[in-house]
């Protein structure tokens, strides 16, 4: 296993569209192991996508199970060819990216999603997700379409009271 170099913006490979995975073999498994090593080496990263290490394939890893303030989660997830089939609600939240050092911004994401993907064995898996985990998946899936959170960032001044309203309702 190896920690792979992370591409940082403005590397144009981050702006490419990634292709679906078709072969679920030992090479894929080895790459996933490297990708996870790379995520763990990144400071505080809860997710990573294959294009961030220069592989233009639809592979992401998300794991929000180790948060200081625990959030609803499905543990360590390898999502291959992921697709969101249902969105619900939206809320702003702060995001940063291994590929965009020293900057964070507020991004509006769906609060709840239904997700279909394949696991490393090629089997279909489905999840209902919410909140922070759903945010992480949406951020990583953007990488597969050549999008960065910078493409979606909203002003810090615009969400002054939205969170409070959300808290009251939840």
């Amino acid at each position, binding site marked *: 296993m190896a920690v792979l170099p992370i591409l940082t913006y403005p590397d144009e490979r981050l702006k490419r569209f990634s292709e679906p995975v078709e072969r679920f073999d030992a090479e894929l498994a080895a790459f996933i192991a490297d990708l996870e090593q790379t995520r763990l080496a990144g400071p*505080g990263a809860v997710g990573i996508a294959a294009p961030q290490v220069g592989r233009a394939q639809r592979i992401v890893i998300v794991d929000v199970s180790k948060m200081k303030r625990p959030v609803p989660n499905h543990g360590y997830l390898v999502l291959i060819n992921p697709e969101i089939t249902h969105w619900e609600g939206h809320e702003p939240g702060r995001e*940063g990216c*291994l590929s965009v050092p020293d900057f964070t911004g507020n991004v509006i994401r769906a609060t709840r999603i239904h997700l279909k993907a394949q696991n490393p064995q090629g089997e279909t898996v489905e999840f209902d997700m919410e909140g*922070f985990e759903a945010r*992480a998946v949406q951020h*990583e899936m953007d990488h597969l379409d050549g999008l960065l959170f910078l493409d979606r960032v909203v002003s810090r001044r615009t969400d002054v009271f939205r*969170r409070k309203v959300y*808290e009251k309702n939840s």
Partner: protein
Amino acid sequence: MNHWYMLTLVGEDSPGIVADVTHALFEGGCNLGEASMIRLGGNFTIMLMVQTRLSRIELDELVRPAADARHLLVHVDSIEGRLHQHAEPDVQITVYGADRAGIVAQVTGVLAAAGLNILDLDSAVGGSSDKPIYIMSIEGQAAQGIEALEQALEPVREGGIEVSVTPIDTMVG
């Protein structure tokens, strides 16, 4: 040898100020760092990090024509650049209430005593002139934890000011 300066411009707002000033800086060979431009009341304000070989006085002279044409006050200070060292906030605090003297001092005072290091603050006066509302948004680092801030804010809330404290969990991926 390049130096960093903080260039501050203040005056009556009018369309095109930022374009005029930054054009003059570009023509004068300056690089720009971070900037914050905001209208406070009807006033234009900008603070702009400028990197240049010019002296403080030469930089002042460079922006003078654009500034004088719009009756803007110009101020230049020598600073350290310190880029690429953003501190990440872990809490957001929003405050609002009927405007009265001392809100900011009271709120920021209790927050400072409870360990808050403010990284970003902006405030506005809304409502009408006979019923003004003060609205403030703060982001910072809670050195003693968020619970300490909540406790410290109790007396402020009892005084009729609405305060919400929300943790910021930055998602990095």
